[in-house]
């Protein structure tokens, strides 16, 4: 289910004194099954852009196509887009409201018109998918830890069985352990369901580790996109957009300046150590 935006422009308070163009003339495609990392500093327009993917915001200019059909063309399509493109906001645990975990996760499916049992069934399935243990299903979502609450909120979106899952900073404010666990859950969910994932993140390391493609936004436009190895190699461009590449990219550049030849796309410290080790051993042999 590809998403396509055509010349998308969005203005907040159009015509008013506080008018602000958040997204200007963006045309991009999110291909089926992709894992996209969407990066850019605060105010670059990425949060505004993703709210168009499921029709929460209506473009000031331009169109958004889901499977080739304009989602703004009628009300039915719009409702359909809400279900098919699951959007997880920043700090999604702040939207929890039900008395039990499973009822909360069933909110989306019940809104789709499913029966209570079916909705609960889907809720449980999604909760298990993101690693919420069964014994928590009947508990109040407000009694859970921060990391668990966030999983419940993500499950609430997954329970609608979207084809595309868009997550805005899903690990913000969590400790390192929960961060890694949640990103692992997302990758696992994608593998099992074959869904498209769009990960909005400030952490270049997380994006480098998980995404297959990176889109960089700056001042409301798409600055560049491509494979992480290529995008993160363009350090100057990234810095101009207020972003820092993953640390290992800087290390590789520094080493290569001193005569090493670390290839592009080495982002993890362990991988880097292996490359360094190989080169050091080669060099000891000669």
């Amino acid at each position, binding site marked *: 289910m590809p998403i396509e935006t055509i010349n998308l422009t969005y203005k907040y308070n159009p015509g008013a004194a506080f008018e602000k163009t958040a997204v200007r003339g963006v045309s991009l495609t999110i291909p089926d099954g992709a894992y996209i990392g969407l990066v850019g500093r605060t105010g670059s327009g990425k949060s505004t852009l993703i709210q168009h993917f499921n029709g929460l915001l209506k473009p000031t200019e331009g169109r958004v196509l889901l499977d080739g059909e304009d989602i703004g063309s009628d009300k039915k399509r719009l409702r359909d887009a809400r279900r098919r493109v699951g959007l997880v906001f920043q700090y999604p645990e702040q939207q929890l409201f039900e008395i039990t975990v499973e009822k909360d996760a069933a909110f989306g499916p019940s809104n789709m018109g499913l029966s209570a049992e079916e909705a609960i069934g889907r809720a449980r399935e999604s909760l298990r998918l993101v690693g919420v243990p069964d014994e928590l299903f009947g508990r109040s979502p407000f009694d859970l830890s*921060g990391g668990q609450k966030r999983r419940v909120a993500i499950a609430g979106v997954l329970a609608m069985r979207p084809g595309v899952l868009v997550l805005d900073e899903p690990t913000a404010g969590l400790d390192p352990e929960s961060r890694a666990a949640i990103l692992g859950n997302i990758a696992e969910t994608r593998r099992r369901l074959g869904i498209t994932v769009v990960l909005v993140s400030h952490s270049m390391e997380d994006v480098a580790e998980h995404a297959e493609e990176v889109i960089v936004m700056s001042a409301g436009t798409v600055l560049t996109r491509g494979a992480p190895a290529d995008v993160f190699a363009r350090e100057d461009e990234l810095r101009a957009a207020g972003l820092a590449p993953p640390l290992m990219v800087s290390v590789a550049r520094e080493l290569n300046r001193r*005569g*090493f030849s670390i290839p592009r796309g080495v982002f993890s*410290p362990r991988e880097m*150590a292996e490359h360094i080790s190989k080169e050091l051993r080669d060099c000891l042999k000669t």
Partner: protein
Amino acid sequence: MRMAQTLGVRFSYTEDGAFALDGVSISVERGEFVAVIGRNGSGKSTMARHLNALLRPTAGTVLIEGRDTADDAETWEIRRAAGMVFQNPDNQLVATIVEDDAAFGPENLGVPPEEIRARVDKALADVGMTEHAKSAPHRLSGGQKQRVAIAGVLAMKPDCVILDEPTAMLDPVGREDVMATAERLNRDDGITIILITHDMDEAARAGRVIVMDSGRVVMDAPPREVFSRADELARYGLGVPQAAECAQALRALGFEADPGILGGAELAEAVSKLRGSGSLDADRDNQSDI
């Protein structure tokens, strides 16, 4: 006299519940920059709240500049001396204008008006927010709000600033803003900084790192030493800075890399030393840029 000292502090949020702090003894000297790390629920925030007399120990003693937090008469002097900045920038600003917010602390202390004015101006200048003095807090970025919160503490002329996960809700630019501000206050004004954080790279910038787990202090050493023990940290649900992880992986592969390496530049330097001078052939030297 020590800035802060805790002696066998135990604390439980409920009458008969588990101890959130279970025998914590630490001491912080004047002018130190100390980071406290630990997973969620390890007790680090509970500890921070003891240093500001927001919480009082169930057992044990907390002394701030020698004043006992259990003594009601000392509460205000303790809170003045050891100011506190919290995680959520929105939920600690009281006033609708930046400078009025900075004035809130000294107003509570009963400082004379002219002096409040002078303190507020200086505090806002110290955190680089002078040009926003008349702005409304909700118009500022997260990093700017946190700097206003720091200014609000500085206006009370503290000897120590305790920052409880001040960067957790910020983007990288905001994080750097707050970290640079804290470092400057520590370096230029000799203010003691106690930084609670989830970010290992931030902790690596401190002079000393305290690691907490299950309400206890499990490590207390300079960052190099703490982060060279990656396996032990992993048991506490913590990682190490990426450069340290790489150095330790190199060690595992049989190289003599310092496990306490903390930064990227330092790592590159150490690796090229390992190679020794001139041992790579010349044509490789030409393939410089990636």
